[in-house]
């Protein structure tokens, strides 16, 4: 093994870790929890490494393990059979914590808040497609749902997000318009 391959292996793992953290964070909006989810994902990956036949599938394979870890976490909070039915109130406090407000600028915070307010199933699909650029088929495999469900959740998520951001923009612009008058 030469230095180049060592470097590439390290870079590969680091890249996967960062991807997983970004996905986990976009789902839970809690840095500590995201770190725990990533750790659990990589431990499970170590345990199940023999299941990965095609290295090209590594990102989707890790994302699927992460999705299972996230599902397990949610079920511990609120037992249910369908992740899409989970109450969003579980995360309201996290989504609007002072820590988050301080770390984000206004627009980023607004987008994250609105994504955090989406139903879990829609949020997962949206972030896997938009952040990680997984194909619809990959997302279906990661979340163990039909491709048609991926498409419908994605459409609903984008429509809702678009509407909410538009409404937020109008709310923000309203005082300025009044002052012009």
């Amino acid at each position, binding site marked *: 093994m030469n230095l180049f391959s060592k470097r590439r292996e390290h870079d590969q793992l680091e890249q996967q870790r960062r991807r997983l953290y*970004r996905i986990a964070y976009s789902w839970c909006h809690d*840095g500590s929890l995201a770190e725990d989810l990533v750790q659990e994902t990589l431990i499970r990956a170590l345990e199940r490494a023999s299941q990965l036949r095609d290295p090209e599938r590594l990102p989707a394979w890790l994302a699927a393990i992460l999705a299972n870890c996230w599902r397990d976490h949610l079920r511990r909070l609120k037992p249910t059979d369908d992740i899409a039915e989970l109450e969003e109130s579980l995360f309201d406090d996290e989504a609007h914590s002072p820590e988050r407000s301080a770390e984000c600028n206004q627009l*980023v915070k607004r987008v994250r808040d609105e994504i955090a307010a989406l139903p879990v199933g829609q949020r997962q699909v949206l972030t896997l497609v938009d952040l990680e650029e997984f194909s619809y088929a990959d997302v279906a495999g990661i979340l163990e749902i039909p491709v048609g469900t991926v498409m419908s959740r994605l459409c609903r998520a984008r429509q809702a997000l678009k509407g909410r*951001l538009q409404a937020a923009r109008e709310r923000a612009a309203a005082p300025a318009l009044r002052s012009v008058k």
Partner: protein
Amino acid sequence: MSEERSISFEELNAFIDGELDAGAAARVLAAIDVDDRLKREACELRALRDQVRNSYEPARLGVGQRRGSFSAGRWPMALAAGLLLMVGALAGWQGHALQRQGNADGVWQRIAQVQPQGDARRLVLHVGDPDRARFENTLDEVRGMLRAAHGRGQAMELEILANGTGLNLLRAQTTPFAERLAQLQAEFPELSLVACGQGLNRLQGQGNDIRLIPGVVTADSALDEIVRRMNQGWAYLRV
């Protein structure tokens, strides 16, 4: 505005995500070309996607900078280093198992190959949930294994590693096993108890009392510890 859409919203989404085949994509493009509303919607969808992406840029997330003592950036280095060292060490005496490996993408396959080769006389038992009955069984097994090893005059090392909600089994305030673990450790000095520091940090952040029972040491993270032990040739088992 009352006219029926020629392209559904789902198709438009699939188009901007590059999910359509050439024929379908050409049809959407042709429709966009003659429909201003559709054109605007496509632009808005692209802008929305960019907004989502920009809101979770790694630099904005502060990856690796969120924590003091147990930062997110430390353990992947350990993971990578651990895997490389583990593979390197094993190559010396199990080179045949690695013959088919040659590129960087094979690292995960190599883990799969070396993992079962751990020395069962040095064993990490990973506890990730607070199931009392299972932990009680585990402690019975631990005592049985260590006694049997003593009986055979064999050296054996065992480590119980807890993370996540499994930490409750090692926390002074929450464990019902303090006395039992103390007895086991007194009888078998080769038994070590290790808690995941990352998990403890999180519990502390939530306002929990994270004091541990005597004899428990803290690792940076459970993953760090697993990789470190595997790197040393230990076997790993989740219980």
